């Protein structure tokens, strides 16, 4: 493909003035992928006029995107890629090869977005032009769109010089994406149970990943979490370079912490893939992350190339970590709370080292990093601070709780649990979260979302007093008579809520016998708007409200905040 496609940078890149200063360093980063042989064999591109077709595909894709936005069918992101690929199936391969510095892919259950944001911040400080796919657009079509929207009608990328793409890739989509865009580096963060209804069981993801690794060219580099046994094992079969990262600060060991709830965590990887015996842990940091070995066959955690040798948790605002690589040791300040963010930072540092990036951009990139959408993001509202901490699976939720409730400070909380498709329909995982640790430690507590009642029930069984919670489900029950008698205006009802109430009234008229007291508290309110309102009102000025939403709940919270003029549209965020 490289032979047939345009391999020279475009004229306008050559004209760019800014290159002078950093060219020498960034040039050294370039290692050509050596994929020619593969592509000569495959001959997947049409022999003639690939750019012409590419140009056509770009025009069609972008037109479709514009139309979709115009018609308010959606944000118009994935349609761009879908249409472009229809017209020219190799469009993604074609465009990706034009990136001067190739692509870095990040995948795993948790930490994809934060890790790729860290990498992006580092590489920008390192003088590269960083392209990313948009949050949540991490399937093939999203990745395709991210390239097509940056392409010109002549079928070439705009400003591809010094460009590198950081692609956040869905766990299950990795084999497909990696076989089309040959990455220079693939970063694997971790593997936990997540969206069981969509991915099936945890083990099937491992199979996807092993296939993806087997498809990688040997010039690629794998960046792997040494402390997650499933991730570390991916390095065993790979012929190319493998770099491991891990935590060596033993004071974070969970096994020595006496808090009983710490020990209840679910573990998703417990057996050795070689011999099936159960791993034994010398140190465990969280879930199955730690220093493990197989007592039977001797398989053990690989020695990490990039290690966090000392970690200081600096309140809820930052972490100070001593990072050791070989002989060198550096202090890196991570402006985020939570043990899991140490791993995200280490993954980014390791990826940057694999690209031969210097330490200065690494430490400045991470230190000045602004939290990614919903990942510790801070928003000021009415003299109060809101912090958004996405939690979409049990391990993620446990780590958020551990971060918030590790000391005795009572917190103001808003939990929003949705079960839309992007969240995963199956929410039984909430029973695996150690909510026990927050019982009695909240000052004010609002529970909302499409599954507010399930979560409230979970909290009740965790020992949270029902009186201490304000439960605000998305929509009222049709049989809820008392709500039906209230006027919608009074409780700030959504359209959907009003429709439900209308139906409820209708039902009551038809079946007066249903007008019995239905036991639902008459003060019950509904909808996220109310939930946010109540949670903010309950939080005193100068204090912090911690909002812990699932994925679609985070989108809703952002939408609500936009309506109040508190936050920019997320798609106008800094990354694109």
């Amino acid at each position, binding site marked *: 493909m490289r032979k047939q496609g345009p391999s020279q940078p475009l004229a306008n890149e050559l004209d760019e003035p800014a290159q002078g200063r950093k060219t020498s360093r960034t040039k050294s980063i370039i290692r050509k992928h050596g994929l020619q042989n593969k592509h000569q064999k495959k001959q997947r591109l049409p022999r003639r006029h690939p750019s012409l077709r590419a140009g056509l595909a770009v025009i069609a894709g972008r037109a479709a995107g514009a139309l979709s936005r115009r018609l308010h069918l959606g944000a118009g992101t994935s349609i761009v890629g879908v249409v472009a690929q229809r017209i020219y199936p190799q469009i993604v391969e074609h465009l990706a090869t034009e990136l001067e510095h190739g692509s870095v892919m990040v995948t795993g259950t948790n930490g994809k977005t934060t890790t790729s944001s860290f990498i992006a911040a580092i590489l920008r400080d390192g003088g590269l032009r960083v392209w990313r796919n948009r949050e949540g657009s991490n399937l093939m079509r999203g990745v395709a769109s991210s390239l097509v929207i940056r392409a010109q009608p002549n079928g070439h990328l705009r400003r591809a010089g010094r460009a590198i793409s950081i692609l956040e890739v869905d766990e299950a989509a990795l084999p497909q994406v990696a076989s089309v865009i040959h990455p220079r580096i693939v970063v694997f963060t971790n593997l936990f149970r997540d969206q069981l209804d969509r991915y099936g069981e945890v083990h099937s993801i491992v199979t996807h990943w092993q296939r993806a690794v087997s498809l990688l060219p040997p010039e690629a580099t794998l960046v792997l979490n040494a402390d997650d046994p499933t991730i570390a094992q991916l390095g065993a079969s790979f012929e190319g370079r493998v770099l491991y990262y891990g935590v060596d600060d033993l004071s974070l060991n969970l096994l020595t912490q006496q808090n009983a709830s710490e020990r209840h965590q679910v573990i998703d990887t417990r057996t050795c893939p070689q011999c099936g015996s159960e791993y034994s842990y010398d140190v465990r940091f969280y879930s199955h992350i730690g220093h493990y070995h197989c007592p039977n066959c001797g398989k053990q955690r690989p020695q990490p190339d990039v290690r966090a040798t000392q970690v200081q948790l600096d309140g809820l605002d930052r972490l100070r970590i001593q990072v050791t690589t070989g002989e060198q040791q550096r202090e890196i300040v991570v402006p985020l709370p939570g043990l899991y963010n140490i791993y995200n930072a280490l993954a980014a540092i390791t990826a940057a080292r694999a690209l031969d990036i210097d330490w200065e951009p690494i430490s400045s990139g991470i230190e000045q990093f602004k939290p990614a959408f919903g990942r510790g993001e801070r928003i000021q509202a009415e003299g109060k601070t809101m912090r958004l901490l996405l939690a979409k699976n049990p391990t993620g939720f446990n780590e958020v709780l551990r971060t918030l409730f590790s000391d005795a400070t009572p917190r103001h909380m808003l939990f929003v649990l949705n079960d839309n498709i992007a969240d995963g329909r*199956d929410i039984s995982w909430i029973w695996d979260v150690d909510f026990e640790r927050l019982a009695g430690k909240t000052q004010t507590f609002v529970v909302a979302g499409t599954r507010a009642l399930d979560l409230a029930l*979970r909290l009740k069984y965790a020992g949270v007093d029902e009186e201490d919670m304000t439960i605000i489900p998305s929509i009222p029950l049709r049989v809820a008579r008392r709500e039906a008698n209230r006027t919608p205006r009074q409780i700030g009802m959504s359209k959907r809520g009003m429709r439900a109430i209308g139906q409820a009234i209708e039902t009551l008229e038809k079946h007066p016998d249903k007008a019995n007291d239905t036991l639902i508290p008459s003060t019950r309110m509904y909808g996220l708007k109310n939930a946010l309102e109540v949670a903010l009102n309950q939080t005193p000025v100068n204090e912090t409200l911690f909002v812990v939403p699932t994925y679609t709940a985070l989108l809703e919270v952002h939408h609500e905040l936009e309506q109040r003029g508190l936050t920019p549209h997320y798609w106008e965020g800094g990354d694109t």
Partner: protein
Amino acid sequence: MIPGFTQSLTLTLGHLYPDQLNLYGDRGNILTLRRRCQLRGIELRVVGLGVGDALAPDEYDMLFIGGGQDKEQAYLVQDLYEMKGIGLWAAIEDDMPVLAVCGGFQLLAHYYRPAEGPDMRGLGVFDAWTIHKGPHVARCIGDIAISWNGQTLVGFENHGGRTYLGTAQPLGKVLKGYGNNAEDRTEGAIYRNTYGTYLHGSLLPKNPHFADYLIELALQRKYGEPLVSSAESVAPNGTVHTNIGANGSTVVELLTYETSTQLKPLDDRLEWEAHATILERLGLHSEATAALRRQKG
């Protein structure tokens, strides 16, 4: 405290493979049983039975087995057969209440036939078998409601295998959802006091009547029957309950199930509101009304 009893009541729950079969929030079932016992002054001890542990039936009053990944289940089959099989059979024949969810349900039937590879032999407690028809056949995923003893049970199902019943009685009839095999509207299986089901989510928190039913079975079995019925309890035994069906026709069901007469009623408003919410999401409006009204007593 149960009226009529001065001694303190203790139940022991054997939780099979808590570390391996815990994929779908199975812990919620244990937490629910423990708390609902605790609120009645009954001590529920939970004993984990892992790989290599033998099952001595006289040490337990209830058993629970959850679901896991296929890979892990295959690894447990041998242990289940060799270390626990005889004890489990003895307990089941002796009417011990046993709840088996998802993978646990499959392990108690004759066999599980995966899409590829050899059959996994089960214990054969239920005359039933499970077939995974391969990756091209969609998994059964979604909210589900079934009728059980004139009431509803709600949950979430997520299974690739299709279970077919031989002579085994189903736990209930599917009102909305897939159930055992998405074909015959059966859900789960019953043998003596052993209940197999695909409902998780978790099952017991949103179905407090079923949780209490299991506790009661265990109490009756351990402390003899019948427990003295207290004055405060409500017993709508054998009452005729009128249900307006979804199509407007009137369905008369005979309530054969005795409400938890022995156990002190708890404040389950939240439980039933959550239960009714699932029913409404599935479009089962009259069932939702019935569930809320039943709680009111």
